[in-house]
C-alpha cells in the first residue's frame, strides 16, 4: 500500500494520460474542476480545481471530513451537477458538454447510483423500483421484470420483490438500491455513503456485495464514505480537504 498526494500533478485528459498506481483504461477523467455554491448569498467554493482519473473496473473511495466537497465531486463526476470550470470525461466523452437530455440518457444507460438514504420510491414495490431504469432505457416490460428479478436475486432479495420499501429493513432497502443501480449493467456505479445509514454488520454485508459485483462484473465503483473500513476495501482511496484532493491511498492494484 502506498500513499502519495494527487491533484494537479495527475494528468487529466485521457490523451494526456492518467496517473496513480492503479493503472488501466481510464473511464473517468476530471481536469481542474471548479464548483461554487451560493449559500446565504455568499459563494462557497466546494471544488477548487480537482483533477483525477479512475480506471475501468476500479473501485475508488473518496474520503474526507464533512463539507470537504466529496459529495459535490461525486455529483459533478456523475453529471448530476454542473461545473464552472474544468472538464470531466466519462467513457471518453465530456459529460458537461452534453445537453441535459443526452446526459440524463447517458446516466440511464451507463450509470447506477446508490445513496445513503436508499431513496427508493416508496409507492413502488422492490421489483418495480429495480426495473425502473430498464423501463427508462426502453427495455420491454417482461424483460425488465425478468432482469429486475435477477438483480434482486443477486442481492439476495428475490423473496421480497413484492414488498414496498417501508416494509423492508435498512439493509434490505440498500440492497434494493444496489439492485436498481446494477440492473441496467452500468459501466460506473456511484455510491454516496451507501453504508452510512446501516449498522456495521449490514454495512459489511453491503460492502461484500459491492466488492463481489465489482470483481465479478468489472464495473467501476466510485464511493463517497466516512468509513475507513470501507475505504480499505477499495482499490484506492482519494482524500479530500477544503475542495481539493490532498492525496490518495492505494490499497490494492486493479486486478490484484
Amino acid at each position: 500500500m502506498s500513499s502519495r498526494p494527487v491533484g494537479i500533478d495527475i494528468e487529466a485528459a485521457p490523451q494526456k494520460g492518467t496517473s496513480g498506481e492503479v493503472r488501466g483504461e481510464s473511464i473517468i477523467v476530471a481536469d481542474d474542476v471548479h464548483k461554487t455554491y451560493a449559500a446565504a448569498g455568499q459563494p462557497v467554493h466546494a471544488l477548487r480545481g480537482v483533477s483525477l482519473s479512475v480506471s475501468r473496473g476500479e473501485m475508488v473511495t473518496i474520503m474526507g471530513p464533512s463539507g470537504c466537497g466529496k459529495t459535490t465531486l461525486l455529483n459533478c463526476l456523475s453529471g448530476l451537477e454542473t461545473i464552472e470550470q474544468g472538464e470531466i470525461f466519462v467513457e471518453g466523452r465530456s459529460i458537461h458538454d452534453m445537453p441535459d437530455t443526452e446526459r440524463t440518457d447517458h446516466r440511464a444507460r451507463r450509470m447506477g447510483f446508490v445513496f445513503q438514504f436508499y431513496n427508493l420510491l416508496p409507492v413502488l414495490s422492490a421489483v418495480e423500483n429495480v426495473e425502473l431504469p430498464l423501463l427508462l432505457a426502453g427495455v420491454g416490460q417482461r424483460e425488465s421484470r425478468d432482469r429486475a428479478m435477477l438483480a434482486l436475486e443477486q442481492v439476495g432479495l428475490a423473496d421480497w420483490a413484492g414488498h414496498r420499501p417501508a416494509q423492508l429493513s435498512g439493509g434490505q432497502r440498500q440492497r434494493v438500491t444496489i439492485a436498481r443501480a446494477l440492473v441496467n449493467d452500468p459501466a460506473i456505479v456511484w455510491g454516496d455513503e451507501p453504508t452510512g445509514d446501516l449498522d456495521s454488520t449490514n454495512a459489511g454485508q453491503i460492502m461484500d456485495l459491492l466488492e463481489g459485483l465489482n470483481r465479478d462484473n468489472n464495473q467501476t465503483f466510485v464511493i463517497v464514505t466516512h468509513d475507513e473500513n470501507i475505504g480499505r476495501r477499495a482499490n484506492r482511496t482519494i482524500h479530500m480537504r477544503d475542495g481539493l484532493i490532498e492525496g490518495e491511498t492505494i490499497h490494492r492494484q486493479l486486478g490484484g
Partner: protein
Amino acid sequence: MEELFGLPTIRLMWIVVAIAGVAAAVIAFIFFKRPILVRMGLRNIPRRRAQTVLVTMGLTLATIIVTIAFSTGDSLAVSVRNLALDSLERIDHFITTEEVGTDAESSSSDGIPNQVLLDLQSHFAGDERIDAIFGSRFELVPIEHPEAGQVEPQFFLVGVDPELADRLQAVRDENGDLIELSALGPDEIVINELAARDLDAEPGDRVRLFVMQSPRSFTVAAIGRNAVLTGNLQAGGAGGLLPMSAYQELLGPRLSPPDQWDSILVSGAGGVEEPLEFSEALDEDIDAALSRLERMNPDLYLSNGLSRYATESVKADSLRDAELIASVFTTLFLFMGSFSVAAGILLIFLIFAMLAEERKPEMGIARAVGMQRNDLIQMFISEGMVYNMGAAVVGVVLGLLFAIGLIAALNTGFESFGFQFAWTVTVKSLVISACIGIVITFITVVFSSFRASRLNIVAAIRDIPEEQYEESHPLTPRRVLRNVLGVFTTAIGLVLLATTPITLILGAPVAFFLQLTGRRRAQRLIPWVLLFGWRVLRWNPQWWVLFVIGGWQLLGFGLDQESLFIYMMGISLLPLGVVMGLNRLRLSGRRIPPRLLYTVGAGFVMFLWFAPNDWHESFFNNNLNGGPELFVLAGTMLTAAGTLLLVFNLDLIVGGIRNAVGGVGRMAPVIRTAAAYPAAARYRTGMTIAMIALITFALVNFSTINASFSRAFTGGDTAGGFEVLAFNTEVNAIGDIRAGLAEAGANEVLDEIEDAGRIEAGPVRGTRAVTALTEAWDPVAERHILDSDGEIRTIETDLAELKFEDREAVVLGGINDEFIDGQEVKLQAISYRYEDEQAVWSALRGGEMVAVATVDAIDGAFGFADVDLEPWSTPDSVTDESIRLPRIVVEVGLGENARQVEVIAILERVSGAFVDLDGENGSLPTLLLPESIAAAVVGPSDSTRHYISTRAGADTLEVAQGIERELRIFAVDIKGELERQQSTQSSILALFQGFIGIGLVAGLAALGVIALRAVVERRQQIGVLRAIGFQARLVGFELLIEMGFIALLGLGLGTALALGLAWRLFAEGTFGEISMYIPLGTILPMLIGAFVASLVLTYFPARQAARTTIAEALRYE
C-alpha cells in the same frame, strides 16, 4: 327578503351572528389563555404566501355561495316588488268572480253587474281607507300601426273612467309624469311601453284597432308606463287605455254591455305603498260586505249558483309573491350551492391534512417536549380562524361580484319577457353570508384540527408513516363505552343547540369563567353548552360510533315520519359506521382486510341508492316520501361511497392501467409512477376525487334531468304535428282560416297551408258538467283488461282507485276533420275496444259519440294533477303503452244539451301538450270530441284555436306572420317559439350550471394544493428519478399525468354516479313518461373543460418539479 326556510331573516341573522361570536370567543379565549399558541399558529401564514392564497381561496367557497344566494334573493325581491308596485300603481284590490266549489278563480264572461259596483261604493262611502272604487273593462283587441307595418293581435285594451283615473293620478308615462285621461281627444289612445315597442309607435302616430274586422283609427296621445291600467295584464303584455266612453263606443253594446264591468278595482287612500298597511283588514271588510250583499240580494249576486264575487288584495299578494319568489330562489341557490359548500369543506379538511403532514416533524418534537394535543388543536384553530376571517371578507366581495354577473345573465335570459332585474343586496344579507361562511369554516377547521393533531410522536419526529399508530387503538369495551357516551353527550348538546342558541351565548362566558378559575369538575357539567367551542376539543370523536347510533336512530325516525330523506341518511350512515367499526376490530390479533370491508360497505350503500324506492318501501313495509332535498343527500352519500370504493381498490385500477400501458414503451415508467402515487396517498387522493366527483355529480345529474325535460317539452314531438298555432278572440273571430285568408287575398299564405285544423273549445260548468257513468260498467268484468297481445289480465291497481267521479267543470274541444288529418299526436293509452290509434281517430272523424282525454284529466300519470280538482283516477299502469283502457262512459254537458260519450283514448302528454286546452286557468281537464257533438253540448264557441300544418319546405314563421298580418289574430310559429323557449331555458340552465360549477374550483384548487405539496415532499425522489435517468420533462409530465389521473377518476366517478341515479329515477317513472336523455353536447365540454383546467392548474407545479436541481434535491431533507 324577510323570510327564509320559514324563519324571519332577521332572526336568522342574529343566530348566525351569535354562533360566529362563539367562534370569535373561542379564539379570544385561546389568545388570552395561551397567546404563544396563537403566535405559533399565525407565524405560518406569512411564511408560505402561495399556500395562504390557496387556503383562503378554498375557505371562501361557502361564503361566496351564500352571498350569491342571498344577494340574488334580495335582487329578485326588490325587482319583483318594484315591478308589482309600478304595475299596480294605485290599485290595491280586485273584485272578480270566483268559482264556487273549486279553488280556481276566473273572470266570468258575463261580467259584473254595475249594481254590484254601486252597492260597494255605497257601502264604503266615507271610508277613509278608500280613495275610489271603480269599474274597468278590458278586452283583447287587435291593433295595427300601418306606417310601420306592425300588427299586434294580442293588445289588451282597457277602459276606465278618465276623471277618476286623473283624480287618483293612476296613469303615468315612462318618466313617471302624469297622463291626464280626461284631456284625451275622442280618437286618442294611450298605449303602454311594450305596445309602443312592438308596434314601433310614438306619440302622434296613427294606429288602427280592429273590432269584428272593422278598423277604427286612433292617434297615440302618450306612451304609458307598463301597468295594469295600461293593459299590461300578463307578462310581456302589450296594451293600451281608452276613456270608458271611447271604449264603449269602439266595442259596442254586445262586447261591452254598458251595465257591466270586467272587474271592480279598489284604490286605497294615501298613495302607492301606504294602503298596504291596512290592506288585509280592508280585504276582510270588502269580503264581509260582499257576503252581506249576497244575503240581501241573492238573485243578483248568486245568479247562476256557480260563482260569487270575491275580493283579492292584489297589491299585497303581489308583494308576498315577490317575497316568495325571492325566498324560493335563495333556497334553490343554497340548495344547489350546497354541493360547492360540501366540496369547500372537503378542501378545508384536505388543506389541514396537508399542513399537518408538512409540519409533522416539528409537531412531533413539540409534543415530545411537552405540548398537549389540545395545544396543537388550538394552534391550528388560531391559524385557521385567521384564514377564515380573511376568507369571509374575500368571499363576500367575490360573492357580490358573482351575483352581479348572475343578475346580468338572468336579465339576458328574461329579455324576451321585457323584464329586468336590478341587483340589490341588504346589509342583513351581507352579515348573514359572512357569518354563515365563518361558522361553516370554523366548524370544519375545528374538526380538521382534531385530525391534524392526532399523531404518533415517534412517527412524526422521524417523519415515517403512522401505520403503527392505527394498530395501537384497537377496539376495546372501554373505548366503545366512552364513545357511546360521547355520542349521547353530543346529541344532548345538539338538541340544546337546536332548541335554544342562547345556551351558546350564555354558556360561553360561564365556561370561560370556569376555565379561568380552574374548576374542572364544574366544567364537566356543561359539555353541551360549548359544543362548538373549547369543550369539543376534549372529545375525541369516533365517527363509527356516531354513524352507527345516529344512522340507526335516523333510520327508525325516517320510517316513523315516512321521510325518505331521513331514512336514506340513516340507512346510508349505518353500514358505513359498521364498516368503520369493523376496521378497528382485531380477531386473534388479525384485522379484517380494509379493502374487503370498505368495498362491501360502499357497494352496499350504492346498492341502497340505486335500488328503486319501491324496494325500500316493500322491505320495511312502509311509505316513504321525499323531495328535491334528496338530490343533495344522494350526491353526498353516493360520492362518499363511490370514493371509498375507488380508493380502496385503487391499486387494482392502477394494476389494470399498468397492464394496459405495458406497450407504451418509454412512457411506461412515467405512467407507472404517476398511477402509483395516488394509490399510495389514499386520504388526499380520496378527498380530491370526492370534491371533483361531488360537483360533477351535481352538474351531470342536473344537466341530464333538465335536458330530458327540455327535450320532452320543447322537442319536435311537442308540436303534435302542427307548425302554426293561431287563436281567435271574442272581438276578432275567424271561423274558417282558409276562407279568411282567401277573402283577404293572401294567397301566398294560403298556398303554404296543408291542413287547417281547428278546435272549438268551450268550458262546461255545472254540478254535473261531467257525470261518470260508473254504473254502466260491469265492475267485475272491468277488472280485466286486454294487453297489447290480446291477453286479458287483471288490472294491477286496486279497483278502489279506479274512480271516475262527477266533475263540475271541463273543457270540451270540438275537432274538425282537418285537425285529424294534420295531427301527429300520440296516444298514451287506448280503449281495448279499438284496434289501434287509427281506429280511434277514425271514430272521431266519423262523428261517433267518443272522446279522447288529455293527460291532465287523469291521475297518476304524471303526478302533477291538481288534487283539489279531484281528477279522474285510472290505474297507475296507464302509462304503460301495452295497457288498454277499460270502457269509460261519461255524460258531458248539462240539461238537454248533455250527451253520453265514451272516452276511448288518453293523449300522450308531450305530443298532446299543444292540444291540451287547459281551460282559462290551466287546470281544467280537456276532452276532445267530434266538432258536431261539442257544438251540441257547448253551443257556439268563444274560443277557437287553429292548428295549421304547412306544406313541406314552407317558411312557418312567414305563415304565422302572414296570418297575424292578414287576419289580425295571434299566430305562433310553433317551432320558432319552441326554439326561443329552449334558448331561454338553456341560458338559465347554463346559469345554474355555472353556479354549481363554482364548486369545481374546490376540486381544482385541491389538485393544485396536492401538486404543490408533491413537489416539496418528493423533492428527494425527484432527484433520484432524475439521477437514474428520468428526463426533466418526464418529471413534470409524471406530475401532470398523476393529477390528470385523479381528475379523471373524480370526473368519471361523478359522471357515472349521476347518470346511474338519473337512470334509476327515469326507469322507476319518477318523471312520468319522460325518457332519459344524456346531453352529451353539454356534459362533454364541461368534463373536458374541467380536465383541461386541472392540467393547467397542475402545469406550474409540474414545471417547478421539472426544474428541480438534481444534486440539491438529493441533499434535501
